C-alpha cells in the first residue's frame, strides 16, 4: 500500500508569545510537527510495519520546515516532498488544500492521511477540502485504524460514540492524536533519514492553475480576556470543602 501523509510545521503553542499591535509574536522560533500529523504518520508506520508498503511525507512550507520532513523520515517515512513557499506566505486551509490537490493530481496512492486539525489554528478544514477536491471518500477524526484485505477499518470519534467505517483505496483519513503515541526517532532512524530522498517543488510551480484569491483572511490577534482572579482555599480538607460548597450555593447560585 502506498501512503501519503500530509504534515505541517506549526509553532509550538507551549512557547511564550506576545501580541504587539495586533501581530502575534513568538518569543522563540520553536517549531514542531503538528501533533495530529505525527499521529497520522505513526499510524502509517504501524500499518507499513505490519502489512508492507511505502510512506511519503508531504509538507507545504518555507525552507526551515525541511527539518520537520527530516523528523518524519527519522520516524520512518521513506521519502518526503517539500512544496516550498516563501518565508512569509501564509495560506488559509483552502489554499493549502488546493496546493496539495495540485500535487496529488498525477500521483498514485492508496491512502492519504492528514491530521484532523492544525494545532495552532484548530481549523480542521484542509483534510476534507483536499478529499473533495480530489473526489476521494474520506473519514475524519480517526482514533484507530486496522487493515483488512487492503481495506481500512477506521474507528472515528463521533459526537456521542464511535463509528466503525470501512473504506477501500483510494481514500483520505484525518487522524486524531487519540490514536497512538507517536514514536521518538531512534538514533538509527536519524542516521538513516539522511540518506532518504527529499524532493523540493516550488509552490509557484503548482499554484498557477489551482489557486484563487484567498477567501478568508486573518486581520489581527488579541489577548483572550482574562478571567477575574479567584480565591485559593488551603487548610483542613473538611473545612475548605464545606466553605466552598456553601459559597457555590450562596454566592454563585450554581448548585
Amino acid at each position, binding site marked *: 500500500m502506498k501512503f501519503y501523509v500530509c504534515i505541517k510545521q506549526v509553532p509550538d*503553542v507551549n512557547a511564550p*508569545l506576545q*501580541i504587539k499591535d495586533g501581530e*502575534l509574536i513568538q518569543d522563540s522560533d520553536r517549531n514542531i510537527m503538528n501533533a495530529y500529523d505525527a499521529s497520522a504518520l505513526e499510524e502509517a508506520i504501524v500499518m507499513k510495519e505490519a502489512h508492507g508498503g511505502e510512506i511519503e511525507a508531504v509538507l507545504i512550507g518555507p525552507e526551515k520546515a525541511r527539518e520537520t520532513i527530516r523528523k518524519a523520515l527519522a520516524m520512518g517515512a521513506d521519502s518526503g516532498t517539500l512544496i516550498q513557499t516563501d518565508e512569509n506566505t501564509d495560506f488559509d486551509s*483552502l489554499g493549502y488544500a488546493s496546493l496539495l490537490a495540485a500535487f496529488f493530481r498525477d500521483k498514485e496512492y492508496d491512502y492519504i492521511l492528514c491530521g484532523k486539525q492544525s*494545532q*495552532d489554528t*484548530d*481549523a*480542521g*478544514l*484542509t483534510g*476534507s*477540502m*483536499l478529499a*473533495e*477536491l480530489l473526489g476521494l*471518500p474520506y*473519514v475524519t*477524526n480517526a*482514533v484507530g485504524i486496522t487493515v483488512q484485505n487492503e481495506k481500512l477499518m477506521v474507528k472515528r*470519534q*463521533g*459526537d*456521542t*460514540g*464511535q*463509528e*466503525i*467505517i*470501512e*473504506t477501500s483505496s483510494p481514500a483520505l483519513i484525518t487522524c*486524531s*492524536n*487519540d490514536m497512538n503515541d507517536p514514536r521518538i526517532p531512534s538514533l538509527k532512524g536519524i542516521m538513516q533519514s539522511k540518506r532518504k530522498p527529499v524532493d523540493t517543488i516550488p509552490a509557484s510551480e503548482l499554484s498557477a492553475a489551482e489557486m484563487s484569491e484567498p*477567501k*478568508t483572511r*486573518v*486581520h*489581527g*490577534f*488579541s*489577548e*483572550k480576556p482574562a*478571567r477575574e482572579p*479567584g*480565591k*485559593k*482555599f*488551603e487548610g483542613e*480538607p*473538611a473545612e*475548605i*470543602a*464545606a466553605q*466552598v460548597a456553601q459559597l*457555590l*450555593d450562596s454566592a454563585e447560585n*450554581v*448548585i
Partner: protein
Amino acid sequence: MSTLLTYISIQDGKVKRSSLETLARCNELAEQSGRKSAALVISDQAGKSAELLAGCGADVIYTMEHPIFKNHLNTPLLRALSAAMDVVKPDLLAFASTEGSKDLLGALAANRGAAALADVSEFELTDDGVSAKRPVMASKIIASVQAKGWPVLVSVRSGSYDTATGTTDPGIEEIPFAFEEADLRITLKEILSATGDKIDLSEAETVIAAGRGVKDEEGRKLIEELADVLHAGVGASRALTEAGAYDASLQIGQTGKVISPQLYIGVGISGAIQHVAGMTNSKVIVAINKDPDAPIFEIADYGLVGDLYKILPPFIEELKKIKG
C-alpha cells in the same frame, strides 16, 4: 430576500442546544440586516423533528427526510447540504461546531467554492461577507478573521450565544432528496455508543472533570457520587481517556469537547492549555488539586488545595446537606 440558514443537529430525538444558540444568532443578524432566518433539518424523521423547532424564532424551517440520515454519514449529508444550498441560496450557512459538522464543513466549502470559518466564538455580517473571532494557539489567543464573498459557511463554538426563542410558528418546507445506497463510498459497519443515557457534556449545566489525580476505582466512585449529587455530566482529561479509564467521547479540551457549563469542577487536573482550551467558557470554575502551583489555579474561581481523596467526601456531604 436573502437568507441566513442554520443547520440543526438533532441527537437522541432532541435538538442540540448549540444549534439553538447558533440559530439565535442568525435570527438576530437576519433581523438587523433585513434578511430571512431559516432552519434546516436533515434527518430520517425530519418532519417530526421540525416540530421540535416550534417557537424557535426562524422564519421558515426546511426539512430533508431520508432513511439514510438515521446515522451520520458524510456522503449523503454533503449531497443534501449542497442540494439545500441550491434551493435556498443562503448568504450564510451556520452550524453548531460538533464532530458531525466538523466532518462536513471543509468538504462542503470546497464543493461550493465557499469561504469557511470554523469554530468561531463570535460572528458578524459585513457588506461582503462575515467577520468573526476564533480562538487559536490552544485558545490562548483570539484571532480576528474575515471571509469575503457569499456564501460563507461558519461553525460556532457551543456556549457562544444564548439559545433561540421566538413566538412565531415558522412554516415548514420540504426539500426533496433522493439517494441510492450504491452511492455510498464508505460503509458504516458498527456504532459503538458509549454515552447511553448519560448527560451530554456539551450541554450540561454542571460538569465534573476527572484528571490523572483520580487514580483508581475509589477515585472514580467519588467522581460519580459528586456528579450524582449535582446532576452533573462527567468528563475527563486526556490523561484518563488515553489510559482507558474514561471513554474518549468524554475528553474535554482541544482534541476533545468544548464545554460551557454554569459550573465546572476539575478534580486532579493540572490545567494544561490543551485541556483549558475546552473549558474556559465555564461560568464558575472550581479546581481541586494537591499542588498549590498547578496552572489550573490561575483560572479557577475557587481553588481547593489538597488531596482529592480527603476533600471530596466532606465536599459531597456538604453538597448533599445543601441540596437536601
